[in-house]
């Protein structure tokens, strides 16, 4: 039998068609899992498989679409093994032993992955790995991962297949007519990720009929470098008399498919509603057509789960602020596990115009792999920007690349053989765009010739590891001109020669150029312009630095990279020229003050908090800190102001939004105070745990309580949502916690609350428990043995104060 890997992409291959309709016609019930028929009615499944082989399908799927441990439990192995054996037998009966292939069919788990759903990525990989191992042992010829409407789940399945067998793996996704997955990915981002992970062919199936698929197929063939697979439904589903059927018959289907095949597709078949007859006509017409192989595309794309950033045309801004180097406050956040602080750094850069976010969380005293995984996961939950994983710790790199939902950028490899041999295998396995520093065992060359030599060495190493050259981005190395004034010239020459001689892409940590000089942003901004003219593909920089952003937008306009100067005009249409700036700021010397409202208690800080002015509170706190010790500000301004608002809320004269506005303002004030107290001991009333219990994934209520508690001087260990009882109890013991706050949204998850309380009583009896949440009532709280029912955030604060002495 000819090797399938050789055939795939060098000649036409035909897939089979629908399963459900065939089995339903033979009596499969509405609620019945089709996979159970592998054991109950193997002869019917065999008939199905055989008819497709006889109709001319080269690849026939095993009846294992929904076969996974979640759905089948312990009968999984038996069911999958039977399915493969049935398909092999059918192939033999059809006389296709020499040229027919049995595809182990893998569909979605039915669960949504974290952070949106509750299935962890690692668990998803395990679930798929099990199917792959069973199917491979039973004798499948390839793995077909299909009908995936979530790119992240596709990644889990593909990774599981690649790690557990050496068979070819095809992945087909469900796109809507706009070329999007249900979870947001596009054709382009999904293909970039799947190719990076080593898919042998990619494509689309289900969801649409052949006609509706045409625009999506067009995009697919223009971005894919591996063979493309198209398996449409037989039109769109119609419901008549309570039954679903599809409206495109075999002849019409074959006509459409011939059109699709001619667009540059290599593998064709059908999905829901297609029959052996559809496939027979399709095979006849397509196999008579001239075959064209897929052409490799020179597209370098970094992706998140929903967005792609192409590198190579316009300069891309990579935000550098998620990095502890030289930042006390960031280091403190890392040590205190303050993920929110880190996420805010990311969101701010997104707002300022970054296209990609660099993520560096290396600090000697923390567990970097664990922190990297945590931060990458959390960032993926709040931003759609792609990430650049920046670490020298290979373990941290692998953890991040594994759970990354997309094709990441990797920072970095260099010319040292040891580093090449530790980083490149990871990039070859998981896919990614690799930043490559032109330094090696002899250090950083002081001339462009040697830098280009190292760049060439890196490209050759990439060839050996099977990493496409298009995914290499050369870091030309920025050394400060304050120690060697020729260094900028060398860097710029390197950029130019990488572009012109090696046809490669480049990147720089731009601000390094001015280290040790005054007015650094002047040098940085001008250097950025020069670098862009010399072909800089990516600038690692602070997008909050306005002079550099001005240089960026100006250079794009000047270099004909901003059509009709649209971006430039949009950003700077109300720009105030430098010379006029002085006049304007003289006009608005003092901030307007509201003279009518007389502060009840405290001064300007208290007033800003009471009125819920976030920026105002931070500003006033900064001012106050110049004359007043921080503790006095807390005692005389913040706490009284919060109390005033809190009391109003309790009386019903202040509503939740005002309470939250004040809480946000107080939080901003505390953040200023915290930054000023770096290093010195901070006073806290007590450490408490807050958690949304296991099974519950909505945690806005808990987060409101958290903000309030922190404002009132408690250190909150926020365990997040969906937290198992053991984690809560173990943390309570480890940190010797005296108060745990639990939140649950649904009656079904109140059960987990009860379990948690029981376990706490047993293992940490001196710990009090406060509960709250949408369905919670005093009676409920009593019934599950809680110490306190907090009807709102204020009530919980009061209770804590009663325990710890407010």
């Amino acid at each position, binding site marked *: 039998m000819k090797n399938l890997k050789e055939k795939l992409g060098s000649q036409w291959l035909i897939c089979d068609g629908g399963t459900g309709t065939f089995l339903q016609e033979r009596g499969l019930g509405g609620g019945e899992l089709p996979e159970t028929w592998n054991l109950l009615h193997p002869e019917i499944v065999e008939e199905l498989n055989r008819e497709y082989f006889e109709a001319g399908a080269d690849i026939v799927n095993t009846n294992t679409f929904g076969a996974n441990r979640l759905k089948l439990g312990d009968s999984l192995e038996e069911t999958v093994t039977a399915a493969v054996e049935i398909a092999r037998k059918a192939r033999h009966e059809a006389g296709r032993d020499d040229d027919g292939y049995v595809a182990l069919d893998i569909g979605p788990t039915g669960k949504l992955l974290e952070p949106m759903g509750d299935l962890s990525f690692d668990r998803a990989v395990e679930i798929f790995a099990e199917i792959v191992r069973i199917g491979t042992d039973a004798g499948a010829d390839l793995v077909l991962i299909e009908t995936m409407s979530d790119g992240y789940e596709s990644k889990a399945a593909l990774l599981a297949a690649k790690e557990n067998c050496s068979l070819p793996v095809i992945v087909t996704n469900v796109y809507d007519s706009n070329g999007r997955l249900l979870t947001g990915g596009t054709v382009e981002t999904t293909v970039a990720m799947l190719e990076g992970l080593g898919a042998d062919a990619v494509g689309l199936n289900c969801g649409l009929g052949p006609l509706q698929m045409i625009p999506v197929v067009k995009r697919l063939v223009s971005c894919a470098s591996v063979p493309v697979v198209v398996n449409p439904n037989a039109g769109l589903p119609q419901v008549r008399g309570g039954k679903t059927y599809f409206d495109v018959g075999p002849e019409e289907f074959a006509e459409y498919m011939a059109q699709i095949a001619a667009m540059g597709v290599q593998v064709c078949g059908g999905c829901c509603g297609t029959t052996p007859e559809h496939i027979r006509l399709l095979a006849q017409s397509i196999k008579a057509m001239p075959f064209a192989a897929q052409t490799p595309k020179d597209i370098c794309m970094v992706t998140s789960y929903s967005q792609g950033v192409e590198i190579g045309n316009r300069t891309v801004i990579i935000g550098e602020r998620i990095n502890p180097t030289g930042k006390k406050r960031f280091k403190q956040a890392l040590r205190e596990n303050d993920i929110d602080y880190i996420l805010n750094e990311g969101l701010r850069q997104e707002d300022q115009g970054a296209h990609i976010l660099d993520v560096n969380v290396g600090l000697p005293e923390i567990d970097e792999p664990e922190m990297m995984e945590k931060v990458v996961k959390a960032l993926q939950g709040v931003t759609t920007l792609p990430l650049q994983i920046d670490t020298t710790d290979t373990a941290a790199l692998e953890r991040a690349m594994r759970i990354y939902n997309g094709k990441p950028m990797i920072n970095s490899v260099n010319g040292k053989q040891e580093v090449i041999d530790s980083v490149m295998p990871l990039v070859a396995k998981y896919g990614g765009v690799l930043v490559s520093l032109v330094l090696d065992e002899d250090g950083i060359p002081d001339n462009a010739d040697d830098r280009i030599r190292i760049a060439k060495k890196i490209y050759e190493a990439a060839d050996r590891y099977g990493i496409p050259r298009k995914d290499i981005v050369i870091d030309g190395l920025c050394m400060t001109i304050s120690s060697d004034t020729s260094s900028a010239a060398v860097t710029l020459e390197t950029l130019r020669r990488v572009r012109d001689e090696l046809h490669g892409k480049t990147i720089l940590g731009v601000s390094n150029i001015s280290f040790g000089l005054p007015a650094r942003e002047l040098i940085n901004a001008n250097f950025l312009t020069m670098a862009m003219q010399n072909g800089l593909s990516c600038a690692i920089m602070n997008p909050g630095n306005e002079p550099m952003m001005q240089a960026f937008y100006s250079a794009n306009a000047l270099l004909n990279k901003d059509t009709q100067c649209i971006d430039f005009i949009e950003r700077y249409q109300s720009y105030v020229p430098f010379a006029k700036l002085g006049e304007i700021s003289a006009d608005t010397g003092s901030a307007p003050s509201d003279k009518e409202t007389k502060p009840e208690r405290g001064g300007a800080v208290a007033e800003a908090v009471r009125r819920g002015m976030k920026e105002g509170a931070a500003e006033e706190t900064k001012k106050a800190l110049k004359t007043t010790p921080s503790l006095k500000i807390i005692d005389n301004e913040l706490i009284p102001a919060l109390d005033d608002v809190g009391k109003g809320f309790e009386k019903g004269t202040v509503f939740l939004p005002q309470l939250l*506005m004040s809480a946000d303002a107080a939080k901003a004030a505390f953040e200023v105070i915290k930054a000023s107290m770096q290093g010195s001991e901070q006073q806290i009333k007590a450490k408490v745990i807050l958690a949304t219990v296991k*099974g519950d994934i909505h945690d*806005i209520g808990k987060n409101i309580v958290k903000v309030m508690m922190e404002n009132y001087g408690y250190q909150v260990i926020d365990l997040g949502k969906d937290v198992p009882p053991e984690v809560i109890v173990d943390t309570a013991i480890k940190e010797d916690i005296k108060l745990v706050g639990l939140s649950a949204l649904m009656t*079904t998850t109140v059960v987990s609350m009860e379990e948690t309380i029981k376990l706490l009583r047993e293992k940490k009896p001196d710990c009090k428990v406060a509960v709250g949440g949408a369905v919670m*009532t005093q009676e409920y709280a009593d019934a599950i043995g809680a110490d306190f029912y907090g009807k709102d955030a204020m009530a919980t604060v009061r209770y804590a104060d009663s325990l710890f002495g407010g």
Partner: protein
Amino acid sequence: MISPDRTEIYRYLGYRGLSPDYAVDALIDDCIGKTEAVIRPASAVGYFDVVTAYEDAVQIGDMVIHSHSLYRNMRSCTRAAMFAATIGHGADMLIRRAELGSMLKASVMQAVGAAYVEALCDEVNEDIRRTAAEQGYSCKPRFSPGYGDLPLDLQRDFERLLSMRQRLGITLTDSLLMVPSKSVTAFVGMYRGEGEVCTDIRPCSDCDMHGRCSYSKDVDR
């Protein structure tokens, strides 16, 4: 395009019959704009026969549901629609993002998302009412799993009968919560003839939380 009911947003935010100040109102507008830009509304409906031969048991299609509340709602019905509706994942991401900077904004995003999915439900409900009327049926107020004593386990049946995951992208967690969070499933009972006309489609008086709920529509409670 669906548009959210502003008074509902106020109610979710805890304003009992009052209007918020200018700053909050402006924030609500901002959140509506951001939400509108990311939502992807989708819904699915199925129609089934209903039998209510035994007290506190309702048979809908192939399911027998033991529930006093649903029985009270559907006693007179012989058909029912089941629907699922969602505004997609975008709203959840907006809420998560807002939580990082401001709990006020997060709460408003939350309320706006809820109002959007309710508006979508009203629209789906109206389609059902029209379809029912064409066939000579009138409709009871919609009734969702988790409401009254109607068990949340029924979410699995909605998933099975409406192909929620494939068609709408709604998945269930192990604890039967829907993802995206701004999703709703509901039964709409259908009975022959005209009979009662229900103006308030979600009467607070029928709810287990009646009298204890801070979102109650009953302003003077």
